[in-house]
């Protein structure tokens, strides 16, 4: 699995993603500059977390216009796998590659903590290693992860099985208490209709080693490897 990790000005999860993919899973990767348009050697594109352009206007609002995003759109069009994490999710929405938007957390505060995610779809390229209903422990770290979509959009997301992760209790129940940011329907991650572009607020790359508190995040990367017919490690 050849992974391309996009670096915008202000991106900071790039090195964490490289660590997870390169060191932990021992897969080849390269960083892709925001001015770069070349993705032909890439199987999986990761848009990492961070504060692209400081998130000063709106998260992802300016990053969306960078040359690399044209390439990412084309790459997604060809069916390539794209994973947007945190700020990367916000960029994908700004680029209209994913529906909805992410508002300020309901608490109006930044939140960095471990949360529980229920896997709603076990058959996406990013979740085949998970059982539907399985609970993953993965950290969040954001101030604007409050998922919003208007009613028709939300309805079609649900109907189309595009909601991949929801915030839940350790036991897998979807409760208000388990919702760290006020997201509609506890939505933590959604995938596009075609099923090759996933956006999520939690950081799977931070959950790849027990030394750091848990390794549930590996399931996403392993699933992607399987989807790309790489022998799973």
């Amino acid at each position: 699995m050849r992974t391309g990790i996009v670096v915008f000005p202000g991106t900071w999860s790039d090195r964490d993603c490289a660590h997870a993919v390169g060191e932990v899973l021992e897969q080849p990767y390269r960083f892709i500059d925001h001015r770069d348009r070349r993705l032909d050697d890439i199987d999986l594109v990761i848009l990492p977390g961070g504060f692209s352009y400081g998130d000063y206007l709106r998260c992802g609002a300016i990053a969306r216009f960078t040359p690399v995003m044209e390439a990412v759109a084309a790459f997604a069009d060809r069916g390539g796998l794209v994973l947007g994490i945190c700020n990367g999710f916000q960029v994908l929405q700004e680029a209209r590659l994913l529906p909805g938007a992410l508002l300020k957390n309901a608490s109006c505060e930044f939140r960095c903590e471990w949360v529980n995610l229920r896997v709603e779809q076990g058959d996406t390229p990013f979740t085949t290693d998970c059982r539907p209903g399985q609970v993953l422990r993965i950290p969040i770290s954001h101030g604007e992860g409050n998922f919003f979509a208007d009613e028709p959009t939300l309805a079609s997301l649900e109907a189309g099985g595009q909601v991949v992760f929801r915030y839940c209790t350790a036991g897998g129940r979807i409760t208000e208490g388990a919702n760290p940011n006020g997201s509609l329907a506890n939505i933590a991650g959604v995938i596009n209709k075609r099923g090759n572009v996933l956006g999520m607020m939690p950081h799977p790359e931070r959950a790849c080693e027990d030394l750091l508190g848990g390794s549930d995040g590996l399931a996403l990367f392993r699933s992607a490897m399987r989807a790309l017919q790489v022998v799973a490690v």
Partner: protein
Amino acid sequence: MIFRAEVFVTLKPVVNDPQGSTIRSGLHSIGFDTVREVRSGKYLVLTIEGADEAIARARVEEMAREVLANPVIEDYRVRLEPVATAASAGERRA
């Protein structure tokens, strides 16, 4: 009576505005190169009750001074208008 108050909060001219300058260079990089400067600020729309316009305005000014703006680095401006009914206040917002 019900009023609709707009509060415009801006950074004092002498204060650094990273947000504004980053937006400006962002706009330039997208080709909007006729933009000389961007200053960023907050825009708050309040729906407020008051016996009359003067009283309502005084309250809003007070809130702006004490809460909505940070006097150390920000200036503010208030605009206020009466609203026929709460409903139409809703419309105006849209």
